[in-house]
């Protein structure tokens, strides 16, 4: 066991020294991998942030019930009593048409339009909050529609759902991008290892002749793939982190205009580690494929 560890340690030192000997090529490779990984990673981060926003906004799903114009006080009272008896109803708010008009007049945009109107075009309305999520509200919808004097039922969760499905689309796109660029990463590693095997052809041949096992000969290439992948992953994280810093400056100003303190938040340590592991595994995979393909061709004669 200690022997096995020592051999790996020696290989690791050797590989790092080799990488250090050609810093230009190493840097370029790491950059290619880093940028390739940064694209889907950045997309994923944006989606995660948007998702968090959508979730916060949609925290309490609501339904608005707009009443028919001919509903009188008695109808409203009866309706209120029935709504209160519905299962899962947590909050019920009545907004009379006069109040709605007042509210609307408060906002500058509509004040002019509304003052030009002779009559109040707005209906009375109930705003209903439930303990359950958007799905439960949806189940409730036909029941609400069937109530007397209810003209229209508006699920406020609808736009959240639309946003959610947009986010889902984005996630799929990011996933496809990630898969494609992961293939690219494997290809880059494959090629790097191929070149490395070619430059070390003599050493491999001699090593085989004087008693090196296949495992020993393969090992440095696996290390190289792993290290290159991990460095690429680190580069990707650095790129995305820098972009977050830069974007947050503009986002801060924009959010302030909307009275929000929204900022892009970077990944937690768990996500970062997962990415590094993913990049390392891809590097290893590229090395594995390259080694299987090219090493058997070097057989001493």
């Amino acid at each position, binding site marked *: 066991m200690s022997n096995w560890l020592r051999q790996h340690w*020696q290989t690791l030192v050797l590989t790092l020294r080799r990488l250090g000997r050609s810093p230009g090529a190493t840097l370029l490779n790491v950059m290619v991998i880093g940028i390739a990984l940064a694209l889907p990673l950045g997309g994923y981060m944006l989606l995660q942030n948007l998702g968090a926003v959508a979730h916060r906004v949609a925290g309490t799903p609501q339904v608005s019930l707009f009443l028919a114009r001919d509903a009188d006080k008695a109808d409203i009272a009866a309706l209120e009593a029935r709504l209160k008896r519905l299962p899962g109803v947590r909050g019920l708010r009545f907004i009379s048409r006069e109040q709605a008009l007042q509210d609307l007049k408060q906002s500058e945009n509509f004040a002019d339009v509304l003052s030009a109107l002779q009559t109040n075009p707005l209906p009375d309305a109930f705003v209903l909050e439930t303990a359950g999520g958007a799905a439960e509200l949806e189940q409730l919808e036909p029941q609400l529609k069937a109530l007397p004097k209810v003209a229209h039922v508006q699920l406020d969760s609808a736009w959240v759902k639309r946003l959610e499905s947009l986010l889902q689309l984005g996630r799929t796109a990011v996933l496809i991008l990630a898969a494609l660029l992961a293939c690219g990463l494997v290809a880059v590693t494959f090629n790097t290892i191929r070149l490395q095997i070619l430059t070390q052809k003599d*050493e491999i*041949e001699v*090593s*085989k*002749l*004087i008693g090196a096992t296949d495992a*020993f000969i393969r090992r440095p290439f696996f290390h190289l793939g792993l290290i290159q992948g991990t460095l690429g992953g680190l580069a990707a994280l650095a790129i995305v982190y820098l972009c977050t810093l830069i974007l947050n400056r503009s986002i801060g100003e924009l959010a302030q205009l909307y009275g929000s303190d929204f900022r892009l938040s970077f990944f937690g340590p768990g996500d970062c580690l997962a990415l590094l592991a993913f990049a390392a595994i891809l590097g290893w995979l590229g090395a594995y494929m390259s080694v299987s393909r090219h090493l058997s061709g070097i057989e001493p004669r």
Partner: protein
Amino acid sequence: MISFSQVRKSYRGGHEALAELSFAIDSGELVFITGRSGAGKSTLLKLIPAIERPTSGTVLVNGQNIGSMRRAAIPYLRRNLGLIFQDQKLLYDRSVFDNVMLPLAFTGHAYKDAARRARAALDKVGLLAREKANPVTLSGGEQQRLCIARAVVNRPSILLADEPTASLDSTSAAEVVEMFRSFNQVGVTVLIATHDEGLVQRLNPRVLALKQGRLES
């Protein structure tokens, strides 16, 4: 220790390098394999570390059958052999010292222990003072001695040398041969393939003379 019985080796295309070859070499022997080029000397030497496999017949090395040996077992066979190649196969991207360190890298020696062994081997061939040099800067005789140092650093029980004096002047050649003799004196079995008749006559060792893949009697 090494035994060939009815060994035939033919290459693709029908060229027969060895035919019906049978002999045995005991532990501690010093044997020269002679013959003109193309007589099968190199092929014979390549059969022992399983670089080539016999087409038919049996090659036994330390009781192991080379013909039926699993691929995975070959490295362990080779670690017990010291190989000196006709084309030397030195690595010019590293120092003399690192060339000798190479065989110790995969036997799992700690660095200190390995370095001590490598220096001992270099000392034996008189190259200790050149350990930091690149092999390119060595003379022909020194390069050949470096090959010997690399071959013996694992303390093999069998040394195989293919034309070790071919490109050397007579003084260097004599030095190299003397080195093989001294290894043989401490119990190492030594096989040397050569076409240098003068060398053989001087030492008067056991000789396997090959002609067209067969033993001349």
